[in-house]
């Protein structure tokens, strides 16, 4: 009997000491000031194929900083193009030939020289693999001395955006299966170590030709959201990207930084009627409820977006009525307001949707206004959007069933039911992906099946205009598309980080955050500042 008590007491003491050590200790792991420990990669996710731009590393809806590789152009804080590998570029008048001069003083980290041939090889391979940047309009890239000539199949003034999208890999010895583990690039950092599922470690590239970053070494951890927040609380990391749910917490020694993004969330509303049509991959197209424009309009004007943001995004976001974030040059004012429940009901009644059986849900010809909205169950903000929209929609008499699942569960329903999507690119070509009827129901393009020839014509027109002039045409195309209410856009989501008080991440020089964007864009300006806290 007594031994039992003794054992129990010992276990209790060990437990208390253990818990106490975790709670009180929490001493931050020691590292030199010029070493950075982060937990921030895009959405905290590990790149499946490693750090291979051919597999999409460094590309998230538009180019982001690949760290290990260089790109032809980069974006600056004002979203202008600046040279990286390029010294100069020329665009032909018909926007079918882009000629880029490549600087000749750049070496890969294995000592070999980066040439125009490597650039051409990278673009041709990226097009062939089709996993990252959209190079569909490119015919081929060819090296010509220290120049690379991109020949396009069609006129495309947005192609200059693609020059930011592909990290350059060496042609010699490139193997798309092994490169990701041992990447050789010419960027500011080189990969020192990658522990799959745990972390990657970058070391400064001593031969880097551009602005030298302050940090010698970057360790980036792959942690689950709760573990990331726990790491912040323990002081184990200098900077961590956290879910919006944690954004209102306060942690000693850290402060919250949040950045507006162009990463917008919205629910696609299939615009076609279900006539038994199926896409090439045999997925049903169309929905007899959302196929009625009145349903789509009623949802768009009846939903309270601000309430959704305050709830689902903890207030960290900006309302969007049309899916184009206000920072983009082709942004436009919405033609409608929301939260008009009465007006929404009016729209439904005018179109013949009435509640005849008194269950609170409107019907038309015996069909109740009911459909499903699918969301990726890993993304809590998408779950909150689906659930909250479903609830708000009941007030205007529309019955939405939220369904959570993996993309494998969503794919068979992506053209026939609502889906919570994330979009956001600094490249206006995204409008083509979203609304062009010629790519309707292909992959994740135009999943709502919008078929509006005026939109198609405006897209074609914009592609043949000078990029700066084309923004207004792109804007018109988006406006024309939005007048069909193909989506229920909700808002852009902020990117929130807990940053150690002794770390300066140069808030004023961040580049634009596209969908899935990351914070590395201005790593050159980060530095450690004197510890101010006691």
């Amino acid at each position, binding site marked *: 009997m007594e031994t039992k008590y003794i054992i129990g007491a010992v276990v209790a003491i060990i437990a208390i000491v253990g818990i106490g050590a975790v709670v009180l200790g929490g001493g931050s792991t020691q590292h030199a000031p010029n070493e950075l420990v982060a937990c921030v990669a895009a959405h905290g996710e590990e790149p499946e194929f490693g750090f291979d731009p051919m597999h999409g590393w460094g590309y998230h809806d538009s180019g982001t900083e690949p760290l290990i590789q260089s790109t032809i152009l980069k974006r600056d804080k004002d979203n202008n193009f600046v040279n990286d590998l390029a010294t100069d570029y020329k665009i032909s008048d018909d926007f079918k030939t882009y000629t880029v001069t490549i600087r000749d003083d750049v070496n890969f980290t294995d000592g070999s020289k980066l040439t125009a041939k490597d650039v051409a090889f990278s673009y041709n391979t990226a097009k062939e693999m089709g996993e990252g940047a959209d190079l569909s309009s490119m015919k081929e890239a060819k090296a010509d001395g220290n120049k690379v000539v991109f020949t396009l199949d069609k006129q495309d003034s947005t192609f200059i955006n693609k020059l930011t999208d592909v990290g350059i890999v060496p042609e010699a010895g490139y193997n798309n299966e092994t490169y990701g583990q041992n990447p050789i690039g010419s960027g500011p950092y080189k990969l020192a170590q990658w522990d799959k599922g745990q972390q990657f470690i970058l070391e400064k590239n001593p031969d880097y030709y551009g602005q030298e970053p302050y940090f010698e070494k970057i360790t980036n951890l792959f942690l689950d959201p*709760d573990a990331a927040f726990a790491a912040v609380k323990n002081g184990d990391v200098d900077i961590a990207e956290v879910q919006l749910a944690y954004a209102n917490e306060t942690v000693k020694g850290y402060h919250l930084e949040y950045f507006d993004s162009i990463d917008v969330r919205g629910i696609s509303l299939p615009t076609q009627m279900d006539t038994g049509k199926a896409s090439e991959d045999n997925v049903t197209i169309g929905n007899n409820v959302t196929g009625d424009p009145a349903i789509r309009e009623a949802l768009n004007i009846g939903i309270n977006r601000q309430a959704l943001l305050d709830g689902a995004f903890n207030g960290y976001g900006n309302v969007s009525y049309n899916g184009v974030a206000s920072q983009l040059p082709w942004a436009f004012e919405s033609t409608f307001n929301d939260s008009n429940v009465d007006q929404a009901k009016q729209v439904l009644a005018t179109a013949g949707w009435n509640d005849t059986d008194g269950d609170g849900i409107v019907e038309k010809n015996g069909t109740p206004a009911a459909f499903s909205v699918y969301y990726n169950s890993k993304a809590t903000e998408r779950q909150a959007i689906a659930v*909250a929209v479903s609830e708000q929609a009941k007030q205007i008499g529309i019955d939405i069933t939220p369904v959570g699942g993996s993309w494998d569960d969503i794919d068979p329903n992506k053209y026939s039911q609502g889906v919570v999507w994330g979009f956001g690119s600094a490249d206006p070509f995204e409008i083509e992906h979203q609304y062009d009827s010629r790519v309707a129901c292909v992959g994740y393009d135009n999943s709502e099946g919008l078929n509006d020839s005026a939109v198609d014509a405006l897209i074609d027109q914009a592609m043949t205009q000078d990029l700066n002039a084309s923004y207004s045409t792109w804007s018109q195309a988006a406006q024309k598309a939005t007048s069909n209410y193909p989506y229920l856009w909700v808002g852009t989501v902020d990117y929130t980080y807990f940053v150690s008080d002794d770390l300066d991440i140069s808030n004023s020089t961040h580049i634009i955050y596209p969908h899935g964007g990351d914070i590395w864009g201005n790593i050159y300006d980060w530095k450690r500042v004197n510890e101010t806290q006691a």
Partner: protein
Amino acid sequence: MSDLPWYNRGLFSSLNLRQKTLLTIALTGLLLLVIFISGMMINANLPTDFSIKMQPPSFEHIFGTDWMGRDMFIRTIKGLSLSIMIGIGASIISSIIATILAFVASINKFCDSFVSWLIDLFASIPHILLIMMISIALGKGAFGVIMAVAFSHWVNLTRVLRAEVLQINTSEYVALSKRFGKSKLWIAKEHILPLVLSQIFVGTLLVFPHAIMHESSVTFLGFGLSPHEPAIGIILSESMTYLAMGAWWLAFFPGLALLIVVLLFDIIGDNLKRLFDPSQANN
């Protein structure tokens, strides 16, 4: 007075042991039934109210509220009723499978070794793994989870029943019936089934706690149901995210409620065993 054991004093002193056992079964059964029925009447899409999100327990929301402002008490009850439903489905199906297999084993040597092989096969695969595989193969959802739990929990009961049936088969009255020319089916129906019925019944009830625990583990791991649907496992896995923020009530109450429900089933099972099995009545 004072030499009476504690359970024979006070309010229930006039009841004998049998009546007390019955009373225990009736009360726990009633409690579970209330949880089950009230849960069934709750719409799975609970109302959200972001203005009251993440509130600690209060008189208004005795289990607190979650990150979408949903009442955790209602969510927990709904989750428990789902667990009970899955438990009922799974334990009934498991017992049917177990009974059939036990009788199949008694047909002849070959059948017996086949059933033993099947038992060993299923027992050698970790439950959770088996459940995940079956649930994915059957298209996830509540149906997939019920089937998965059902098809992985017959093993223990089958083993017990098989031994029981083997033992009865060697008894003298069965041998006598055989010599009288009674068919195997007749013997199974008239001699064996009545004797193992109590085993089956108790076995069914004792599968319940396992089934419920496994259901919550599977939903905890994200298999089966949508994350906005209230299943205990989903509630608990969701609470992990918010524990770091100090929202202890999201895990504490649902976890405790799950524990209590499992214990209640265990109590019913144990008491039933006492009723049916006279040799254990004095335990």
